[in-house]
Structure formats: C-alpha cells, structure tokens
C-alpha cells in the first residue's frame, strides 16, 4: 500500500499488505496471516527445487541491479564441503529509497522467513542481515522478531523439526553508503573498512570470509515466502505485458508529490499513473519538471519520457533511465535542477571510499565545478569539462559509485542544458558563495 497512506486501488499489495499493522510484527501475528507456510513448504523440497521455483517466478533482484534471483542462487557450488553464507543487504542508503525500512519495521518475519528459505536453497546454515546503523527502529523490531523466531523453531538447530540448522545474525553498520555495495558490505561485516573488492572472484566463489556467498536485497528475500506459498505461476502472472519483469515492486516516491510513500505496483504499471493517480500528482499550481526513477544513481527523466514510460526494468531503460532500487524522486517546476545535481554530486563525493582515482578525484572535481557554476563563476567550457570528467568516471572503477555520480550529471546536462546555461550567462542569479 502507499504507506503511510491507505492502499490505492491501482496497487497490488503483497509485501506491503501489512504495513501499518503492528500485530503482523509478532510471530503469532505473522503465522495468523499465513506466515511461515512458505518456509515449511521449502523445507519439504530439495534445494534445487526451490531454486527452480525462483527461476520460474521471474523474481529479479530488488536492490538495484535486477539480476534474476533463482539464477544467482544456482551459481552457488554444490557439495563442495565448505560452509556457505547468505547475506541480506539491509544497508538501504540510496537517496530516494525507503522501502526496506518499512519491510523490516512492519513485516520482520517475512524477511526472516525469506532468509531461512534462501539458506536452505543455497546450502547455507547462516544468514547475516547487515542493517545500516541509522536504522534504529528496524533494528529493534528485527531483533525482537529473530528472538521470537528462535523460540518457535523457525530458526535454530532443527528448523520446524526438519533437521536443518539455520541461523540468522543481525549485524549493525556504522554509517557508510558504500557498504550497500555487496563486496564492500562483506568487507565491513568482516571488520574491515568498507572498500569494494575487485570481481572476480564473484561472491558465489569467494565472498564473505572467502567462502561461497549469496547476497540479496531485503525486498527480494521478503518476496520469496510469498512465491513459495502462492506458487511461481501466480508471481509470474503479476505482469503487464513484459515477461522479463514480473511480480510486484515497492516504489518509494518522494519529493514534490501530494502523497509521498511506498507504492507497491505490478511491474509494468505506467509511470504517469503512479505519479499522477496513486501519489496524487504535483502540489497545487505546479507542473512536473523531472523524475529520478531508481534512486539517485540513475539518469534523470523528462516529463515526456515519464509520460510514455512503463515502470519495469526494460520499460525505464527504454525511456532513458533505470528502475534501480525503485526510489523515485519527483521534482516539480520550482526545482533548481543544477543545485539538486550539485547536491547529489556532493553526496557521492562524501561517500566515495577513495580507492579508485576516477571516483575519488572525479566526485570531488565535479562537485567543485557545479559549485562554481552555482556561484555565478562558471566558465563556458564547464559543461564540456563535466561531460569529459563523467566519461572518465563511467565504467572504469572497482564499483559503480563513480558511475552513479556521473549519471545524474550527464543526463542533467543533456536534458536540462538550458538550466545550466542560465547560470553561465548569469540569467539565473547565483545561489552559492564560493568558499
């Protein structure tokens, strides 16, 4: 549902059905709502059959990359005699995204159940859930739920009498956006600085503690029990014309809409329906200027692109951006696009781990150039310079933080060039004073 607002008729509440329902947080409350049936079913299946079920459902990673979940699980080695790990990425920090927080606050057992199913499927006995340090309330809700799950044998030495051992351990981050990158998260969990690792080796070969590891986003794992309970065919049927994008997706909508919140849509829903019907459109007297549809790391979209866009993995790519994490930042005509892009660049400059030169220098330089433009001292060559730097920041580093900084800059200049030029020509008054 469009939490904190009542569910909109155009939504498909699966994961969000019990957002706001405090009784769903307890073990008993979750069981009364059909919870833990998926795990029981999975425990009666072979791990291979669970993986096949995920493949058949079409579920793709909800953290940003959109990689097929069943395929990812199938990469784990079989009968290698080594301990395997499942890691749940709950380091939700992508600007614009606030869905995993609500899943953990309202339906903690959905996530625990998904983690337990995942462990069974990939042959792991232990799942670490890495929760960002700032998420204090989700931490407390999850802690209580894990304790209850152990007390009811949904976790522990002998899960529901199956003879399977499944442990879930919560691990608290300490403030670092980059730890949402999967290999940085693993380093952080190991008690190191959160620097991303070079791939290969991929996590399925050598991940956490150099052992085979699968890492999934909170929303991905929370969808797993529903798929097992109701069947892959049901999930695959939640689809509006594009068979590559199936199921529901939580879209966190923020910024200049009347009703910001988490909207659960069937993938493929027209973006204009989401923004103008479900979210109530713009504030009175305002018109849409731009949308960043997938968290701050993806290109900006114009109103024309929004108008014809189907909200799914391929649909948004066709309209010049990406679904990403589903964090949708909506900006109306009062927005200073140049300033907001500067603010995003500043975010990436702050969060760069500084391993790679292109990122360490590029995020800082682009931030400085954007500040110069906003202070009225931009040079006519600055836009070309920004594009040149952005090119050197794309596809050349260990992780994609650098690319993420470049995406809004490049798309901003391409699609809203007049806004930049107005600062360069002094038609727009400076808004920053250079230090």
């Amino acid at each position: 549902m469009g939490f904190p607002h009542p569910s909109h008729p155009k939504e498909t509440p699966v994961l969000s059905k019990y957002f706001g329902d405090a009784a769903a947080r307890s073990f008993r409350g979750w069981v009364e709502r059909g919870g833990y049936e998926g795990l029981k079913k999975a425990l009666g299946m072979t791990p291979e059959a669970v993986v096949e079920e995920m493949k058949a459902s079409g579920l793709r990673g909800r953290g940003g990359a959109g990689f097929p979940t069943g395929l990812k699980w199938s990469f784990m080695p079989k009968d290698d005699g080594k301990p395997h790990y499942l890691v749940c990425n709950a380091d939700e920090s992508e600007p614009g995204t606030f869905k995993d927080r609500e899943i953990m606050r309202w339906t903690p057992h959905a996530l625990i159940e998904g983690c337990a199913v995942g462990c069974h499927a990939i042959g792991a006995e232990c799942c670490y859930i890495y929760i960002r340090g700032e998420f204090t309330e989700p931490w407390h809700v999850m802690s209580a739920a894990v304790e209850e799950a152990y007390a009811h044998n949904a976790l522990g030495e002998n899960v529901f009498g199956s003879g399977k051992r499944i442990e879930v351990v919560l691990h608290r981050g300490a403030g670092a956006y980059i730890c949402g990158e999967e290999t940085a998260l693993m380093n952080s969990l190991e008690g190191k600085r959160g620097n991303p690792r070079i791939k290969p080796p991929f996590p399925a070969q050598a991940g956490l503690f150099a052992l085979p590891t699968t890492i999934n986003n909170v929303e991905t794992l929370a969808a797993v029990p529903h798929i097992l309970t109701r069947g892959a065919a049901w999930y695959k049927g939640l689809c509006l014309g594009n068979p590559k994008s199936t199921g529901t997706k939580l879209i966190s909508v923020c910024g200049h809409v009347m009703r910001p919140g988490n909207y659960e849509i069937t993938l493929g829903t027209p973006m204009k329906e989401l923004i103008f019907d479900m979210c109530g459109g713009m504030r009175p007297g305002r018109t849409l200027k731009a949308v960043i549809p997938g968290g701050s790391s993806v290109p900006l979209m114009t109103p024309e692109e929004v108008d014809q866009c189907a909200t799914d993995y391929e649909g948004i790519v066709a309209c010049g951006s990406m679904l990403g994490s589903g964090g949708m930042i909506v900006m109306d005509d009062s927005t200073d696009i140049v300033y907001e892009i500067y603010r995003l660049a500043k975010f990436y400059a702050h969060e760069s781990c500084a391993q790679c030169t292109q990122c360490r220098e590029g995020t800082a330089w682009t931030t400085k150039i954007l500040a110069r433009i906003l202070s009225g001292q931009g040079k006519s060559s600055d836009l070309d310079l920004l594009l040149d730097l952005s090119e050197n920041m794309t596809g050349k580093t260990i992780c994609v933080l650098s690319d993420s900084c470049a995406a809004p800059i490049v798309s901003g200049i391409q699609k809203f060039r007049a806004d930049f030029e107005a600062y360069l020509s002094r038609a727009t008054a400076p808004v920053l004073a250079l230090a």
Partner: protein
Amino acid sequence: MTAGTAGVGAGEGGGVEAHHDAPHVPIFAGKVKERLDALFPKYPTKQACLLPALWMAQEARGWISPGALTEVAAVLGLTPAYVRGVVTFYTMYHTHPVGRHFIQVCTTSPCHLCGSDDVLTALLRETGCGELGATSADGRFTVIEVECLGACGFPTPILIGDDFIESVTPERISGILQGYK
C-alpha cells in the same frame, strides 16, 4: 584532547586521556564482556566483531576515545592502528567527544527538495550549537548534516541519539528539543 591531537600509536595504552576516562573502568568487563563473548560464536573470526565491539565502546564512553580504541583492539587481538583505520571509515563512530544528544539531520536531495535546509538552520539556532559539528555551550547538543537517512517520504527525518524522528519542520523543533535535557 581534541580529535586533531588524538593520535594513537601501538603500545601507547589507554592512559593518555586519563582525564576523560578516569577513574578507569574497563569497557569489556561484566555485562558488556558477556555481550561480546556471546557474539564470538556467531562469526568465524574475532575480527568480524569489530563493528559491534566499537558500538559497545561508544555506548560506554560516548565516543571512541584513544583509550577505548586500544581496549577494543586488545579484546579482539588487533592493533590500535588497524582499529583506527576502520573507525575513521564510518561516520557514526565519534572520534571526539560530542554533546549528550547527537543530532543528525538529513539534507540529501530528496529532503533538500522539501525544505531540509530550513530545518537545519532552525536546529543550529535552537540548540545553540551555531555551526555544524560544534557542541552547544551547555554540552547538550551536537548537530551534524547526514547523508540520506532512508526516510525520504517523511521529510525531514532527524536522528537524536537513537531516536529516529520523521517529518520534522522548523516549527516542531523547540517542542522536540524539550524532550532532551
């Protein structure tokens, strides 16, 4: 001792900032040690308990003092230099003393679009901190800007200590601050 002078070398020990830690009570004793010991079996290495151990140290001392850092290193079999490298990577560990109530204000783009600058200005004024990172004269508050708190639909979210408060507006601030003495 300020952050700028809090250099820690291996073997320097915890005594250098005795005026902060005196009388010396070890962090990892009694209940805290029990909590840490309970974590060890959950991980294949002791080092993996570094972030949790640092959280315990900060809870005990209010910040990661040079002495606290040395104690964390000792209990995990790491060097203080290594631990300092990790501490400085993460923004939530304080490398210098802060006010009793540490306030983090989200000002990243989604919140900025909805007026977080005004919330920040009002907080700096009403806490008496005046500037980012400074502690108010009465020792009550320290205010910092934080990057995306992950509650963009409820602008502006702030964290006061462990209390996550959504939808903060300049008008709400004096009422909120009254709850933090």
